[in-house]
């Protein structure tokens, strides 16, 4: 089971209808991804930070998640400034740092953090079951939706099966090396894992049928209908409009 550390809470964001939150996250993320002006990107980062504050999340956990992306960004910062063509800022032997390279890296950094923070604040704050349902009512096909929910539930079971197979190989003295025996063993492991996963999927589906499943998950959560939904919608739209305004002027 994947933990959902942000899903529980009673903040302003937690009480917004999930459909509205997903729509807002999608629109804002697309706007951020397509923008290039620094004023737009900085305001996007500010909006995302505000959303995080409104969701009232555990800061240390949020930072932990943001740091994961920081790892990738460091790689970008190492490569982009010296490989991108443009006005040279600084030279060291054959290596030249360009202004355009630094600007591009900064843009990507701002975009990544804004989008990630938005998704944490708006989407990670709902349980996956609610996410599935909201996606369903937003018109995402049922099969895709079930795929999401069921893989979410069973990724850990498959991982456990894998660990079990690896253990079984280890206790019989299997040591991986670069030889045909190793490759063959890994091929068996992978094959076995697929077989087991598909058998398991079949049994789970049968169990679901036995409990009256007919193709649609029915959510247990109910969301308060109150003033917060229209307020949130207005806030989102004004954020979107101001970003578009900044980008086009």
């Amino acid at each position: 089971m994947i933990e959902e550390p942000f899903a529980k809470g009673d903040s302003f964001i937690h009480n917004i209808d999930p459909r509205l939150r997903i729509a807002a996250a999608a629109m804002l993320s697309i706007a951020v991804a397509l923008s290039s002006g620094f004023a737009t990107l900085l305001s996007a980062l500010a909006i995302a930070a505000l959303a995080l504050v409104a969701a009232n999340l555990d800061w240390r956990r949020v930072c932990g998640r943001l740091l994961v992306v920081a790892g990738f960004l460091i790689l970008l910062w190492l490569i982009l400034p010296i490989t991108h063509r443009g006005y040279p800022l600084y030279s060291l032997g054959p290596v030249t740092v360009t202004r355009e390279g630094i600007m591009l890296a900064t843009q990507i950094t701002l975009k990544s953090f804004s989008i990630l923070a938005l998704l944490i604040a708006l989407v990670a704050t709902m349980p996956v079951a609610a996410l599935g349902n909201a996606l369903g009512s937003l018109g995402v096909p049922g099969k895709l939706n079930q795929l999401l929910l069921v893989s979410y539930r069973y990724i850990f079971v498959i991982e456990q099966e894998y660990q079990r197979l690896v253990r079984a190989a280890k206790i019989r003295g299997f040591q991986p090396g670069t030889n045909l025996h190793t490759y063959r063993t890994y091929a068996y492991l992978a094959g076995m894992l697929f077989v087991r996963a598909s058998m398991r999927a079949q049994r789970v589906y049968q169990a679901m049928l036995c409990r009256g499943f007919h193709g649609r998950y029915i959510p247990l959560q109910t969301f308060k209908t109150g003033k917060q939904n229209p307020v949130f919608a207005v806030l989102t739209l004004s954020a979107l409009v101001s970003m578009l305004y900044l980008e086009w002027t």
Partner: protein
Amino acid sequence: MHTHEPLIKLDGISFSYPGGSPVLEDLTFTLSEHDRIGIVAPNGSGKTTLLHIIMGLLTPSAGSLELFGRVMQTEKDFQDVRRKAGLLFQDADDQLFSPTVLEDVAFGPLNMGKTKEEALALSRKTLAYLGLEDFEDKITFKLSGGEKRLVALATVLAMEPQVLLLDEPTAGLDQDTKKRLIKTLSELDLAYILISHEFDFLTATTDHMYPMENGKILVDEELHVHVHEHAHKVGAHPHRHV
């Protein structure tokens, strides 16, 4: 003596997996109201297959199946029946697929068309009945084996079935959980078929016990368990009782 309506009536059921020898052969069996039947079957004797046929998950190659007074033919027939018959799977992990216990227990009632409030009330009641009040928000994946089995039973009971089908419910359980299961089953006013190897458990929970062999349930060979003591001159030697 009064007669009871047959709930499950199997007549001449045969089944074989593709390319395999027959698992069930001309199996005939009837379960009536208030029947509590134990079936003792060796591994691979087709007991799980039998339960899956009753639930309509597998289609027999021959024979007729009558559930709650109706002959079963199409998937649609079975969809109605699945609300009345609850199957407890051999592996509880297959049965629990929602993030939290409460959601999992409410899954069946919601599918039956109950409102959220009704489904929640029913789920809480079932969990309380099984002594699992504090489990509502627990993560199904993190439960112990025994807890998983009890929660799986709760998911089945929450649908208020008329018949229970239990596939080796004691497999891998400790003595305490077994005792809880025995207590629960003897308090339930439900007809059930229970498959197990454990005679102690079967004697405590069922009224009749039949062996299953060669793809048939041998109703004529009811099993009786008794304890006997006797002395042997050479008692330390292994010996057979027939």
